[in-house]
């Protein structure tokens, strides 16, 4: 749970369904639109958009479903992906560039390059991942200007 600094500008909740490639990017697109409307710096909005997209794609590719929570204050943008799924057995391994458990079908569509989590880490100010095999994964993204 976040400890917001300052007043809450926006809270939003979403759901992402695993395997639903037809809606890939919808959540991150909405997050980007909302942050742009508030008037955050474009570079910050881009970081949030990219990090959220990669987290969203991880759910679609590897989990059954996820609840997504967005909390925005003037000083912090927090996005949490709480999924139900197979979990990540080795987070350090999953963080390695090029490591991927994607299927040939996903790669045919251009997914599964194995740089999703490193991309999130590069764009977020702080990233926390907690996972339990056969239960699910919680990914917490903190973005500060």
């Amino acid at each position, binding site marked *: 749970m976040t400890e917001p600094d300052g007043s809450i500008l926006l809270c939003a909740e979403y759901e992402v369904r695993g395997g639903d490639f037809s809606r890939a*990017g919808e959540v991150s697109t909405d997050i980007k639109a909302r942050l742009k409307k508030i008037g955050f710096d474009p570079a910050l909005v881009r970081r949030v958009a990219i990090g959220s997209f*990669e987290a969203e794609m991880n759910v679609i590719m590897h989990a059954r479903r996820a609840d997504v929570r967005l909390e925005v204050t003037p000083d912090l943008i927090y996005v949490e992906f709480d999924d139900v799924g197979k979990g990540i057995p080795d987070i350090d391994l999953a963080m390695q560039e090029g490591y991927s458990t994607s299927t040939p079908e996903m790669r045919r569509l251009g997914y599964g*390059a194995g740089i999703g989590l490193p991309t999130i880490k590069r764009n977020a100010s702080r990233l926390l991942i907690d996972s339990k095999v056969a239960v699910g994964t919680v990914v917490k993204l903190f973005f500060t200007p």
Partner: protein
Amino acid sequence: MKADVATLVEKLGLKTLNGLYNKEITGAFISDMVSDVMNGASPGNVWVTVQTHKNIIAAANLVDVSIIIVTRGKTVPKETLDIADRVEMTICSSPLETFGLAVKLGEAGVVPS
């Protein structure tokens, strides 16, 4: 070359598959992997790819790509074009292979970001 979508489309003789939404062009990025685009494409870029599924539009829009050029004359589904129109993203087609199109972009003055 004036660096915008309309000028590039005319100069390269590209076939526009949906509406033409004129935006500034800042450079070009080539990849068929979506995460590559997330990491490497800059706002205002031309994205050159062989991917045609509708998810490329969300990805392109998130990083503020100005135009998508699909190479090898691949058919782009109507679903993809409809979403592209909704977010005002121009999609063009080229019969050239990706490398051939890249050469043309370079000749037109479009360079990597």
